[in-house]
């Protein structure tokens, strides 16, 4: 890469580095985004100076009067510095808008210093101020994007974890499985439930599976449809499904909605369902002779 032309901004950063740093710091203080409750003065200054130094180095290589694309290789070090500072600050509880304001606070002090240095050449002043403004905006946007990406990642991870947690198939007894459903049953989860259940039937050679909906908050036509389809698939595999945990309220709702469960066995509680399951696989629970007095 060819060396970038010397600009007033780069001169400013190399000759008056501490001045710019102090001014940036002061502006953040004034705008209320310094967060002295989260970072000591020393720590904050270290972060700013690190960022400013990386920026100053980048200016030696990049001509910012050209369109700025922060995603290119030339900016990689600065991107890393931005990501790092964003990570450190957000981990301690800095809000996204504060982080953006934190970056934008660099504009005003630099503009002021530029207008001092270029007072005699207003055209150059305008050009440099506008270029510098664009670069800082790009940084602020990058910070924001970083935020969103990070948050999306967290949401995606939690969703996957929830999915895994929410469909455990448990073997209750020889040839008897249960899957306790909790929360809401949307199409995606219903699919997951069915897959897990059918694979477990093969794995355990289960003959009876109890689908327990005690923990399902709302049963509407769609949820009922998912349950019945699961029961139908279970039957096709050669096992039987028992839907348990149908509360009086849910029973009323289902009838009002016109849901017909057909041949599918239903039980009000998992206890009643287990009793039925034992009967079908040929077991019986009996009380041992009471030896207690």
């Amino acid at each position, binding site marked *: 890469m060819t060396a970038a032309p010397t600009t007033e901004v780069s001169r400013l950063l190399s000759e008056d580095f501490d001045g710019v740093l102090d001014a940036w710091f002061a502006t953040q203080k004034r705008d209320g985004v310094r967060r002295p409750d989260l970072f000591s003065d020393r720590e904050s200054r270290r972060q700013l100076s690190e960022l400013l130094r990386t920026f100053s180095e980048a200016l030696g290589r990049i001509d910012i009067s050209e369109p700025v694309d922060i995603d290119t290789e030339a900016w990689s070090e600065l991107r890393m510095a931005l990501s790092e500072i964003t990570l450190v600050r957000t981990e301690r509880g800095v809000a996204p808008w504060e982080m953006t304001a934190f970056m934008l606070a660099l504009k005003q002090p630099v503009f002021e210093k530029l207008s001092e240095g270029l007072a005699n050449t207003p055209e150059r002043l305008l050009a440099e101020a506008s270029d510098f403004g664009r670069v800082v905006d790009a940084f602020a946007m990058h910070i924001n994007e970083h935020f969103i990406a990070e948050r999306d990642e967290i949401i995606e991870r939690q969703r996957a974890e929830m999915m895994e947690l929410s469909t455990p198939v448990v073997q209750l007894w020889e040839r008897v499985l249960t899957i306790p459903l909790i929360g809401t049953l949307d199409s995606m989860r219903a699919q997951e439930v*069915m897959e897990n259940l059918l694979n477990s039937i093969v794995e355990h*050679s*289960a003959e009876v599976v109890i689908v327990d909906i005690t923990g399902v908050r709302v049963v509407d036509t769609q949820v009922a449809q998912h349950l019945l389809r699961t029961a139908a*698939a279970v*039957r096709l*595999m*050669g096992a039987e499904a028992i839907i348990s945990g149908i509360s009086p309220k849910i029973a009323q709702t289902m009838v009002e909605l016109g849901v017909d469960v057909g041949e599918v066995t239903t039980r009000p509680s998992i206890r009643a369902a287990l009793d039925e399951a034992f009967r079908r696989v040929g077991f019986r629970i009996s009380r041992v002779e009471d030896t207690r007095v």
Partner: protein
Amino acid sequence: MSEAASVYSVDKVLLVAIRDNITDTDIINLQEDLSERIVNEAARGVVIDIAALEIVDTFVGRILAQLSSISRLLAAETYIVGMRPAVAMTLVELGMDLPGSKTALSLSHALRALKAKGLA
């Protein structure tokens, strides 16, 4: 006999093993073959093992349902056994949950069920 399925006769039960590469023609031939053998051998039970089937479509689903209905008319009880989870999900997705067919986990489960009814 069709290439893609084997039919064995054990006592009064016909055991049908369907292979994965079965074609539409094969399965129609199987339907005819099976109908005749049920009558000729006075079979009281039919067990169709579809463990090898990895893919089903509406056609195969319909024929499976038909096989059950035909055997019932000829006084034989049909069990479809060994269905894979993916196949079960596809059939349910297609709305073909074979309401008229009996199912079992495996061949031995089906034979046990037939024995319990005195059909094997």
